[in-house]
């Protein structure tokens, strides 16, 4: 049974930018179970392709990505008027203070260390931002 208060992902379009296939599929499956529509990308080109063709409600962004970094992608998202208002949550397994500061400074709503959360807890965090 879902507490309506902490599952606001239902009906939303969520873009997951994640390098690890295993983690991506687990999280996507969970979000799907909770009623979200999930889009996945790990390369920069694919991220911006998705943002052009789909109406994304929230972006989950990893930092360590092939051929680029999450910070670069975040900068570009915020620089584009058509995407700058989409909330971004950084989901990384790095978490040095300088990275967190940078992420928040670049405009991420939250910086979460994946390993510290169960998937249900992550969905609560996402719901908080979607409120």
């Amino acid at each position, binding site marked *: 049974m879902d507490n309506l208060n902490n599952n606001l992902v239902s009906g939303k379009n969520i873009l997951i930018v994640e390098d*690890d296939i295993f*983690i991506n599929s687990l999280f996507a499956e969970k979000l799907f179970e909770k009623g979200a529509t999930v889009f996945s990308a790990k390369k920069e080109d694919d991220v911006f392709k998705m943002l052009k063709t789909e109406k994304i409600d929230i972006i989950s962004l990893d930092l*360590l990505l092939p051929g680029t970094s999450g910070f670069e992608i975040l900068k570009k998202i915020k620089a584009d008027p058509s995407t700058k208002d989409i909330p971004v949550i950084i989901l990384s397994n790095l978490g*040095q203070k300088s990275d967190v500061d940078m992420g928040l400074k670049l405009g991420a709503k939250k910086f979460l260390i994946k*390993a510290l959360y*169960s998937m249900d807890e992550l969905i609560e965090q996402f719901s908080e931002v979607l409120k």
Partner: protein
Amino acid sequence: MKEDNIKNIFLTANVHQLRTSLSGARWAIESVIKNSDCVNKDLLTEALNKIVYSIEMIGEILKFSEEDFNEDKIKLYKNKFYLNDLIKKIISNLSFLAQEKEISLDYEEKGLFEINADEKMIGIVLTNIFDNAFRYSPKSKVFISIEKKDSFVKIIVKDNGIGIDPQEMEHISQKFFRGKNAIDFDPKESGVGLYATKKIIEMHGGNIKISSVLNKGTTVEVSLPLIH
């Protein structure tokens, strides 16, 4: 102390790998437990508890280390030593990898070179560079040479491997960057190594130059000041 500084440099990469593996395991088991058909729920719950505990332990380890790779926090402990000896030792340490990747190694010393440097740090740097050469150019030749260039000793490592895309050259010593070629080739390695390598060399008053042709090979040149 010296040991802590060295651990800190590569802590970031290892922490990330550990956390990524544990996240995957944690979420996978959570998914299975939530499934109403789940048998052995108690056993799986116990496994999950141990994984969460492991994740917490990583956090504890980090608390007592310097989190940021910050050159102001890194101290160099220098001593005089012969670069020739260090390089031979590293090559010997990497012989298992060289065998696994079927590397044919050519090593040439154009002189005897004594430097005043942090031997452990330089060892880590050169190990990183040699390791890259072996890892990303399997079944081919790698040339390592040392020679005098003005008041510097130049270490040249040339491989015939996968190379680096010219568009990515600018970025390769940024903290997290891994070239697309390297990702396709060996997705498990993280990109923190080259950033740390560059910092350590520069702190010694040296420099590092990397040139590469995609799918043809890479040449890395490290220069370090000789003792006057």
